[in-house]
């Protein structure tokens, strides 16, 4: 798609989309968001770049491995979270929450093991969507 308007908009919007998606991912446990939504949003960002520039700014064709690793790694991460639950908590996918007093900023941060699982979901969703896009697009 060779449109200057779309290219310019992509330059501005896609970074915002991606950063916002990370924000959605991290806050997902407390407020609307989460791995699935964030993954889709990140892939929407990649889709925009792909539609606007093809392989010119990011070489989707030769870097497609990145996305294959992304979804396989995400799946492994989710599974390992489950295994960690098995060994620490007693059964598969047992979740846990830890409250940690952060140094320097003196705030009480909360770490949920489910959030790690959610990052796995994020990686799978994003990896699969972009892989599909590059695979289908390669034929053009």
């Amino acid at each position, binding site marked *: 798609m060779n449109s200057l308007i779309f290219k310019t908009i992509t330059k501005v919007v896609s970074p915002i989309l991606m950063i916002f998606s990370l924000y959605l991912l991290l806050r997902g446990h407390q407020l609307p968001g989460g791995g699935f939504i964030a993954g889709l949003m990140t892939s929407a960002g990649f889709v925009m770049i792909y539609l606007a520039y093809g392989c010119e700014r990011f070489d989707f064709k030769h870097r497609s491995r990145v996305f294959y690793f992304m979804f396989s790694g995400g799946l492994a991460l989710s599974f390992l979270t489950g295994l960690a639950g098995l060994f620490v908590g007693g059964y598969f996918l047992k979740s846990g929450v830890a409250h940690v007093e952060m140094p320097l900023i003196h705030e009480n941060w909360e770490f949920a093991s489910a959030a790690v699982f959610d990052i796995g979901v994020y990686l*799978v969703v994003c990896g699969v969507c972009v892989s599909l896009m590059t695979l289908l697009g*390669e034929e053009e």
Partner: protein
Amino acid sequence: MTSILIIVFFPFAASLLLLLLSPALQKINFGTRLGWAISVVPFTCVALILSLLPGVHAGGASTFHIPWVPRYGIELSFLVDGLSILFGLLISGIGFLVVVYSIWYLSEKEDRLKFYLYLMMFMGAMLGVVFSNNLFGLFTFWELTSVSSFMLIGFWYHKDVSRYGATKALVITGVGGIAMLAGFIVLYSITGTFDISEILLMGDVIRASDFYVPALILIFLGCATKSAQFPFHVWLPNAMEAPTPVSAYLHSATMVKAGIFLVARLSPAFSGTAFWTGLVAGVGLTTMVVGGYMAIRQTDLKGLLAYSTISQLGMIMAMLGFGTQYSAEAAIVHIINHAGFKAALFMIVGIIDHGCGTRDLTYVGGLKKEMPHSFKIALVGCLSMAGLPIFGGFISKEMFYESTLHMPYSGFPYLIPFIAVSASIFTFAYSFKFLIWGFFYDAPKSPPHHPHEAPALGLFSPALLAIIVVLLGIAPGFFAHGVLELAASAVSGKTADLNLALWHGVNTPLIMSFFTVVIGIFLFMRLKKVVSVQDKLSEKVPWLSPNFVYNKGFLEGIPPLTQACMRWFQSGNLKQYLSVIITFVMLSTFGLSISQGNPLTFARLFQTELNFVHLLTFILLIVASLATVCFKNRISAILALGMTGFLVAFFYVLMGAPDLALTQFLVESVAVILILLVFYFLPPYFKEAPPQRTKISDISISVLVGSVMTYYMLMVMDSHLTETIAGYYLEVSEKLAGGRNVVNVVIVDFRGLDTMFEIAVFSIAALGVYGMLKLKKKPKHISKVLGSK
């Protein structure tokens, strides 16, 4: 009790280690060192099992649990008693000897790494079977033994006969295994537990149950296929294509005894009825006669031993079937006897095969001079197998005769001893055929190589086994008080007191033995004539053999049937698949909810308040859906489809579901683009209008889906909201999972397993697309894959 975990999982760990290290190991020339390193594993297991023995002597059976799926009572649980210790010692002890033997047997050219990998996997699985205290654990290990046996039979996979034998073994034992699983579930419905030690105490409940007969038949199918009982014995002779150490280990001493083991293990719960005796002893005696009948025909020494194994397994099965305390003791004694002499004889056949280049009796004969040490070992093994005095086989055969005389539920008191004697006459004849033809008579043709004796390393294992066989005959008390009594009492459920001795005075069993020997010698003298009569018989009535049923019925009958089914189910037309799936789901769930649901009241439908925005969204939604169907241009149709999605998402916004709305928006955006990319491959316009028939069926499916979904909506509105789980999740979300976004907490925590499978499916879909698009590019490659048969 952690030693039991080491016993079962050490072989698995060794197998896994070999797998992981195989790329590195393949580069270095490990020679025989690998075999020596592996022999540590069974040796450790022997030592650990022996260390468990004093505990069983002192305090009886003990169990050890690790929860697995606690809600359904499935756990990794181990039972240590006399029976499991006896089998454990057999498995690890003979395992050790077989590994040492294989160091000599497998030449440099063979893939030793793969051999030990599968062998250790088998050993772990087999130890798992005998020590399991949970039916599901037992089943899992049981199937693993089938799989590793498949791998080992097909070790020389480039040979057609190996592949045939491996498949046959897997198919027959696999089908039996599934029947056994069904039997376990039936058994669970009687007892309410999968715990074997609990089941064993519920014998009276089980025998009184209506499901006693089906449970017994199904479980026995598993045991009979595994232990090569008639008519499922046909896989065992073909399994002889495996390397000889494997035949000695899996197909004579251990794996084929798994069925025997399970029958013995469950006999306190099942035995003691006429049906049990009729089924188990009936099948066992038939197998014993058929195996003996077939064994005397064989000229291949390994085939002879295979049929002899079938016959001996039948004998043990029959003794377990009699169900008396004495017969249980006899069975236990024969298990250890048989394992000893048969493993030794198999190893001798391996030595003959190595030395002469063949093991066929038409080429091999008169080996006494060239192989003096092998001859001595074979002499001990054959005489014990034939049941002659001073060897272990004599004691257990006497016990077998004694138990046939006192078996319960027999309508014909003389029939069973008569069958026993005639089967033993076969045993005597084939034992002497092995010994005399192999070592005394000269063969009609000469072997490919001039025979030569094996080195000490090859002779070590069979020699040690031969010594044990002799000890079993002259000092049976040592074994009896060490472990056999404990095993026998685990089978019969009563404290056993074994007084084994070679000489019991002149009694009925001794007279029966006398007749066996006399008629046996007579049969051996006339063996050639008998075999020619047998050959004529099998030529005239080929369908009498179960092999005929397997080859003609299964191998030639089933594939056309499955192909026909497959062509019908898998037409390759996506639209047809979807129509069938959707129609089925809709009709079945609709029928179910109609039959169980209450009539619709429409009460809350009319209370719902609609404003202008809602109505407008509805109308647009309907317009967009109609447009999707009506557009002739594909791209317009996709955009209209996306439109419906966005409108639904907008509806979520109106109803206050931000998470859903956000997800829906993003899914639609990405999906529309992906679909557009897919449609790049298709022509821009739809083909000519589909025929009238297709249109009608499409419309009726749409109407069906629409009306069923509407019905569900109305039904949901009728139900009371307080019954839903939403309130509970809202309440506990923060407390249990530390998250305030309940939707997300449900996804990643409460229903985490669902999500995990969803992302797995998602990844599999990506892999599927990858395969479809990447492989499509190389049509040559695909045809190569499909054409390389």
